């Protein structure tokens, strides 16, 4: 019985008795020791006289599912980590409040205007390869499909980048997307549940390329001093993922939430992003040298108003094309 | 007095009826062909299988009594000992089923082991003992349990003739000391002649009322003659 009490004690409600507490739902890797969470918490608490509490809930999609499950009982004041593929689905829930003020100083590759969702970072999807092994790097989906290079991708039914790839191909090829997928099918070694499995398999040498981000090589350069990873630049352009933060209409901490949203676009927040979240900051804050060596896609593919129905149709098309 | 009143045991197509009174403080042998129901009768008395009718001991019905609550100790043909418990522990179970033995209890266990000729073997595991020794351990336990009725289901069938008679004599001695009522299943007529005061014959779905041993063998019934092959 003692053990049980011990276990119970371990999971007592966390957080302490500070004056005000702002609860922010986010994804797992954001709050890990090596993610942006700890630094951002310290920086915000230094100026707000409050407690910032991160609650991790899997990834972006899991977080949205969680908000729907919790309904009005949610403890979240702010949600950080939805992206542009989930934005319209989230908006339809009608639980988010408009931003107090229009954001200033955003530096995204595309025009951004939204009265509810505020970008805090962004990145391009790309196929990453080992530049010591690959000599002829494909410059488009067509070139990739024609080559006999092997790739590992993620399943759009369980993974955000996986879904991003489906949107990417659709945005680049429209109605011909199924043909592109059919042509790619003999290049695909396998389709994994999430990014970690795919990237792990790529590092083990199971495939020549893996679906990841243009900034992935920067991680290897900065953290491991390893210049052997590169991202392939595609002439069709690259899918742009924009990560978003928003305030809940039902939050009892409206003022504090506004304060946090304003903090998101400050240098204190933005400068932490590159080397912890390995994405581009949403403002023109300085980025590490390695980031400027990354490829700069010809076009940013980011469909406006991607809805639930678009997603279902896209996934169905993908399954059908690859099940041939 | 042990009274079996309109006892009937039905197991599938097998039936056994018994209606008799057995004298206390003596040994009754139960004799009969294999598959006749000798063991089944004992098993029913011990409370392990369903039956109709009733069993009375000293005027009290045993109906509904759990095996351990009955005034009965039973020795099986095999599996009388727990192989993972020591000899002393196996015997000690007869005093306290939770084996929380006091010093006095342990002395009693040792005494019982001496009584059956196994002094000093208390720490052994049953597998280190011979077949005869194992049954002696079971006897020592029955001794300690001090139940007035002992049921022995051919426990010595596997032993050699000399050893078997020796064991029977030991059992009879111990029974006499305790004044217990002993029912002994056997298929060897000489066992009955050796220690039993009366014989119950079991065959053809029927357990016949006890007959004094001498009379039983002097004027054998038709069934007994068939069984003895005479």
């Amino acid at each position, binding site marked *: 019985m003692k*053990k049980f009490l011990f*276990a119970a004690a*371990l*999971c007592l*409600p966390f957080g302490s008795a500070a004056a005000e507490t702002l609860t922010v739902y986010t994804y*797992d*890797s954001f709050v890990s020791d*090596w*993610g942006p*969470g700890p630094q951002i918490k310290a920086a915000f608490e230094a100026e707000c006289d409050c407690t910032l509490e*991160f609650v*991790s809930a899997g990834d972006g999609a*899991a977080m949205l599912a969680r908000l*729907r*499950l919790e309904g009005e009982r949610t403890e979240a004041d702010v949600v950080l980590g939805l992206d542009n593929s989930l934005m319209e689905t989230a908006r339809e829930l009608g639980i988010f409040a408009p931003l107090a003020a229009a954001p200033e100083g955003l530096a995204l590759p595309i025009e951004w205007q939204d009265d509810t969702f505020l970008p805090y970072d962004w990145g391009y999807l790309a196929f990453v390869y080992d530049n010591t092994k690959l000599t002829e790097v494909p410059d488009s989906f067509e070139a990739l499909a024609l080559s006999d290079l092997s790739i590992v991708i993620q*399943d759009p*039914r*369980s993974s955000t980048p996986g879904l991003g790839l489906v949107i990417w191909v659709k945005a680049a090829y429209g109605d011909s997307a199924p043909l592109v997928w059919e042509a790619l*099918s003999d290049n695909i*070694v*396998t*389709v994994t*549940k999430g*990014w*970690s*499995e795919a*990237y*792990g*398999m790529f*590092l*083990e040498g*199971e*495939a020549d390329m893996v679906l990841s981000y243009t900034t992935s090589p920067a991680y290897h350069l900065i953290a491991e001093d390893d210049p052997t990873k590169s991202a392939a630049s595609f002439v069709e352009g690259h899918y742009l993922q924009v990560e978003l933060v928003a305030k809940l209409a039902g939050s009892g901490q409206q003022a504090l939430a506004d304060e946090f949203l304003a903090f998101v676009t400050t240098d204190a927040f933005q400068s932490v992003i590159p080397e912890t979240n*390995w994405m581009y900051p949403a403002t023109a804050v300085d980025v590490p040298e390695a980031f400027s060596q990354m490829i700069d896609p010809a076009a940013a593919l980011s469909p406006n108003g991607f809805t639930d129905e678009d997603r279902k149709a896209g996934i169905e098309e993908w*399954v059908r094309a*690859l*099940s041939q | 007095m042990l009274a079996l009143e309109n006892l009937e045991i039905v197991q599938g197509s097998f039936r056994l009826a018994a209606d008799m009174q057995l004298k206390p403080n003596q040994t009754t042998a139960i004799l009969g062909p294999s598959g006749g129901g000798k063991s089944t009768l004992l098993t029913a008395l*011990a*409370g*392990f*299988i*369903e*039956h*109709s009718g009733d069993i009375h001991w000293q005027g009290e019905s*045993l109906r*509904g009594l*759990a*095996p351990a609550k009955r005034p*009965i*100790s039973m020795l099986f043909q095999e599996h009388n000992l*727990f192989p*993972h418990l020591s000899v002393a*522990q196996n015997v000690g*179970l007869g005093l306290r*089923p*939770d*084996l929380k033995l006091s010093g006095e209890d342990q002395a009693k266990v040792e005494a019982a082991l001496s009584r059956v000729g196994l002094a000093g073997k208390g720490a052994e595991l*049953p*597998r280190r003992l011979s077949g005869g020794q194992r049954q002696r351990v079971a006897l020592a*336990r029955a001794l300690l349990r001090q139940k007035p009725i002992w049921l022995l289901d051919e426990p010595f069938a596997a032993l050699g003739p000399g050893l078997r008679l020796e064991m029977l004599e030991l059992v009879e001695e111990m029974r006499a000391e305790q004044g217990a009522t002993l029912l002994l299943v056997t298929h060897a007529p000489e066992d009955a002649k050796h220690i039993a005061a009366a014989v119950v014959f079991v065959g053809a779905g029927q357990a016949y009322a006890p007959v004094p041993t001498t009379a039983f063998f002097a004027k054998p019934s038709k069934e007994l003659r068939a069984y003895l092959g005479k």
Partner: protein
Amino acid sequence: MGACAKPVNRLAKPLGIAALFVVAVLVLAPVLALLSRAESGGVSAAVWPAIRFTLLQASLSAVISVALAVPLAKALARRAFFGRGLMISLLGAPFLLPSIVAVLGLLAIWGRSGAFSDLLALVGLGPLDIYGLNGVLLAHVFFNLPLATRMLLQGWQAVPAEHYRLAAQLDLAPRARFALFDAPVLRGAAPSALLVIFMLCMSSFAVVLALGGGPKASTIELAIYQALRFEFDLASAAQLAIVQLVIGLAAAALAFHFGKASRFGGGLGAPFQNWDRRRGPMLLDGAVLVLAAFFVGLPLLAILAKGLEGLTALPSGLWAAFVVSLVVALVSTVLALGLSLALARLIEISQRGGAIELFLLLLLATSPFVIGTGLFILINPFASPFALALPITALVNAALALPIMLRILRPALSRVRHDYGRLAEGLGLSGWARFRLLTFPQIRPELGFATGLAAALSMGDLGVITLFAPPDVQTLPLLMYRLMGSYQMEAAAGVALILVASSFGLFYLFDKGGRGAGA
């Protein structure tokens, strides 16, 4: 009638029913909770290929695992050799690996750039391509062959040594030996092993995706995950969960129909000795043992090698995660043990024991995502699910280990009852004393194996904790996944090694404790 009273402990029935209630809540309540919150939607025809593939891969995985386990278990049962104890323990390891760790370990051997592909390249042959059904089966056999072997091995070890001596004396022909020993053992243990493996593979998901090669290899479990996570289609998730339960029920009914516990009168627990010294069978057994050692051992070695590199990069928080995992594992083991003993007793004394046993097997066919989400819906109105994260994880892990524990413990318990039940009843041995003096020592090997599995399964499980975990509490598997999610593959491999070592250590302690010094 009824002149004979069955001495049943007064507490046995209420305890058993309470345990049954807990299980019923865990199996049914989540599905009902999902249905209660379902707004619209439902299963589309697109799910049929997933159902087909699920059935195909799960059946094949079960049949192949058990078929290969037959010669292996037989060799282990009748040969004494140096390292036999270690090999039997090692067979517990694959089953305990988190799926992603196992996949990477398998790929290091069988992958396109794995050891075998490298060997093939030396003679100019192309790399192995295991992706597709082959890969899924390879992984599932890797996971479950050892489990099947252990389950069959128990059957063979229950054959009294006297029977083998008799066979040696009579110089029985192989066919006669098969009919005498092997057929009853298989009839007793194989349906059970087939069923457990079928159920485990049915809800396998990350492995199927990683090695399946594409959406052709989709399972019902993936459809459930998709419905719960992206679509938020609770109706569809609940319906899929019901489909899984129905398939599980059908499989369980089949296994029950064909499975009859084998009954050998026990010997006196004498140590086993093999009397078969013919050369042919000895060579064959040797070959089987060596092949199995390689099949199971090589991927484990790969995991070990990778993990050792990562030990230098271990993250902070490892120790805390280890303690949390260990506490959850131990609590969950205690719960699982209590539940399984109470339920085993209930099955024994209840007239509807068969139906109860069948129902309990459904736990294996229950999706962890459905349990997690369902419990979340149920708990959320009353308490913060975060605060209950660890107790719930422990309880769910216990419940998921329960059917496997019961499959292992039930035959042992009925053997004890068969051999010593009357003696114990005659002596008035009941309740705790009976457990302590008779049941526990007699079923110790099975108990050790079963609790070892429960502890290690809980240790390596990611399952429901992901839905509930507050950020400052993490288990080892969660820490590992979080590391992998942030490029830190090396540190993740180190954590994986710690995780596998501690799971295996727990399993080994329990299992070894059960087999005692005589193993």
